[in-house]
């Protein structure tokens, strides 16, 4: 019945294909968290707790039951949309994720936009003028971006722009304490503040975002620029470009309509990969800038064996990547009509 809408059908098909992946993730994350060293009941009962209170804590956490039963309870709650309570933050995992995932996404997406805005033109220019100073500059920036660890870049940027020059705002998280966070609509402060028309807060949030996003952008810029340059070089030396040139098309048209569009495919693939590892690299940036994101949340939960929080995090990430892959595949078809979406 969806035959008249091939794209919609394909999207639904892809979503259906994601179901086994999600089931696998649920099982594996459950088993892996249980395999973590350490006993959360002992940890959360506190340092002075005696045997009896540890046992009480174990029962309160439901850890006294056999593993299969714990799993069934977990799945049952999951089906009702309940991700459980995080012991380390003392709140439902769903609430924590709803607060923290947008913080990380806002940071990562801003960083990626920033990185693309710099890396893609730089890669294109480096390819068209290979061997010139701009190519060398590209190489230097790329090498520096990859070789500087993010926490180092972060601390360096704070030192220069906040500590020495005093032009950056205090690295105190998403918003300085004098602002009130905007009403929660999407959880992206920039979007929420814009929706409310509160431009003061929007500026405040944007200012807080510049340094951490810049740090992350420096790190993600390198693979994008390299890939753009390489893909452009390949495209520019292809036969169809020579044909286009021979046909007398303008240099601009050849470069952007033919070469760049063809070079975009590997760049988009790289973007997908960069996005995933940027979410991971976030942890260090989040720590340095006191950013209340998902990375630091997951690491803290992992350290104390906070099962519900770790499982919720893994599940959220899995869903995010299913979505990301779908978006990238859709982008492919938009960029290159030769790629049939339902062919796969």
């Amino acid at each position, binding site marked *: 019945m969806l035959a008249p809408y091939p794209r919609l059908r394909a999207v639904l098909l892809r979503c259906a294909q994601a179901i086994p992946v999600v089931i696998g993730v649920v099982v594996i994350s459950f088993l892996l968290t249980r395999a973590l060293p350490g006993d959360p009941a002992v940890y959360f009962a506190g340092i*002075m707790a005696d045997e009896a209170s540890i046992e009480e*804590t174990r029962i309160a956490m439901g850890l006294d039951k056999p593993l299969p039963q714990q799993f069934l309870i977990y799945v049952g709650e999951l089906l009702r949309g309940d991700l459980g309570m995080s012991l380390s*933050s003392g709140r439902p995992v769903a609430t924590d994720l709803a607060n923290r995932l947008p913080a990380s996404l806002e940071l990562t997406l801003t960083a990626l936009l920033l990185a693309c805005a710099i890396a893609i033109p730089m890669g294109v220019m480096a390819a068209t003028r290979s061997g010139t100073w701009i190519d060398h500059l590209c190489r230097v920036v790329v090498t520096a971006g990859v070789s500087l660890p993010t926490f180092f870049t972060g601390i360096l940027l704070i030192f220069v722009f906040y500590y020495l020059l005093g032009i950056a705002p205090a690295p105190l998280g998403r918003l300085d304490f004098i602002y009130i966070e905007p009403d929660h609509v999407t959880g992206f402060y920039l979007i929420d503040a814009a929706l409310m028309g509160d431009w003061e807060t929007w500026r405040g949030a944007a200012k807080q975002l510049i340094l951490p996003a810049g740090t992350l952008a420096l790190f993600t810029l390198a693979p994008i620029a390299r890939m753009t340059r390489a893909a452009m070089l390949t495209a520019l030396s292809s036969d169809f470009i020579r044909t286009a040139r021979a046909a007398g098309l303008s240099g601009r048209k050849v470069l952007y309509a033919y070469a760049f569009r063809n070079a975009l495919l590997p760049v988009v693939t790289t973007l997908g990969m960069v996005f995933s590892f940027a979410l991971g690299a976030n942890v260090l940036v989040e720590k340095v800038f006191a950013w209340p994101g998902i990375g630091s949340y997951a690491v803290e939960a992992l350290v104390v064996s906070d099962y519900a929080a770790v499982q919720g995090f893994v599940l959220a990430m899995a869903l995010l990547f299913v979505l990301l892959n779908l978006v990238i595949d859709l982008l492919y078809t938009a960029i290159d009509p030769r790629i049939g979406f339902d062919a796969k």
Partner: protein
Amino acid sequence: MTTTTTRRDFLRMGAAGASVLPFLKAMPAAAQGSDTMVVVIGQTINSLDLHRTGTSRAAYQVGINCYDRLVSFGTKEAIGGGYSYDYSVIEPELAESWTVSDDGMTLTFKLKPNATFWDGRKVTAQDVKWSFDRAVSVGGFPTVQMKAGGLERPEQFIAEDEETFVIKLDRPSKLTIPDLAVPVPYVINALEVQANAAPDDPWGLEYLHTTPAGSGAFKVLRWSPGEQLIYERNDAWVGGPMPALKRVVIREVPSPATSRALIERGDVQMAFGIPDKDAAELADTLDVFSTPVENCIHCLCPNFSFEPFQDANVRKAIAYAVPYEDIFQTAAFGRGLPLYGGSAEIPDGDIAWPRKTQYDTDLDKARELMAASAWPDGFSVPLSISLDLASWMEPTALLVQEALGKIGITVEIEKIPGANWRTAVLVEKRLPLHLENFGGWLNTPDYYFFWAYKDGHLFNSSNYRNEEIEQLVDASLHMPMDDPAYAPMIKRMFEIALDELPRIPLYQPALNVAANGAEGYEFWFHRQLDVRPIKVT
């Protein structure tokens, strides 16, 4: 609080207050009037209720600043600058006065008649009883801490009339009244909790987790876990002198480097619990308070269940081989107090603890002792450290490894993840050689010995047992400190413990706080920030 305070309410509160923060002006430094302070901390406040399972240490400050206890401790000048609480002076907080019966078994407290909760209701003895019942009933840490003062069952607490509260003890103890001044036995608005808590949650654990209901000096204005907590002064507080600060913002900044930049720039007035290294480096430019933590020792513990350590000569050889000065300078950056190079002779009446030991680095003596031991050719042993405490344990372990190598003991460093550490070191007590950092909240030597030297007790991670120590601790634990028999007993305990060395004291650590434009900081044994006495200049 977070869920109920809307943006509009918050702005209105700000506008209505005596001091108005110039909200929405992007000048944080200028925005802070003399009645607002911003503090950065490294840990997360994960609950507003100390009695709840899993509440983090950083969250204890809510119990201190938002709630009142019956009594509190006095104030004295501290070593290392600033002030400290004074264990020897008990001051009233919610109680106006109290009497102890002649047999020491009945304590009668008269509550301040004008004390009110935040909702305006009078604080009654029934509220005190309900709060104490809760602390001894919910299990876990609060119940253990109450027990230390002989407070174990709800039947011990009697609300005689509205303003009279009575505690019946099973035996008189010098620890009872100090134990009423620790953060745990705070007084909660029982009626408010009973009206709001779910039927299956009689102690309101879920309600108080997010909504404090107390009579303390500060209310919680906003709380965003993982980000910040904002206190606002309770102008009707009668528990002590009215705080100078109207509003205090606690921001969580996990990176010490970032905290340091913030405090140096002056955008925050206080950085609480900074690393020893930063404290040492900032001491010249800012007000840095490095208060030695009372009744706390960083120790190297040889476990008696590991055969070579049953040999007294081996333990002494280690005590003479440890490079104390290097450890104190490298691991603690000279913050805190060194505990080596003292005299073995303990003067009569000297009950100071932690104290300097008779040991100092003397490799020749260490080698002699090793030669005289049953293990002249040495042996190899793992030295275990916790990854959570790596900042001091790692450099210390490396120095110990190097030094013990010189007397023939091959040391391999074993790093244990934080979540496993407690089980391995304190419960199973299976680590042959390890570092340990116990500190007692109640500041008496017998209390330290009770936890750390008695057989089977939690912090006796060396599996040490000495019959005389067992007897001495039992006899002295509840005895008043001015009893003539007390000091000689303590002296004997020190002599035995420092001769037998189940724990080799390395140094007394410090709690470091940097202030830039704030004064009146006071150190507390609970190692959390009491914002009540602080002023901003």
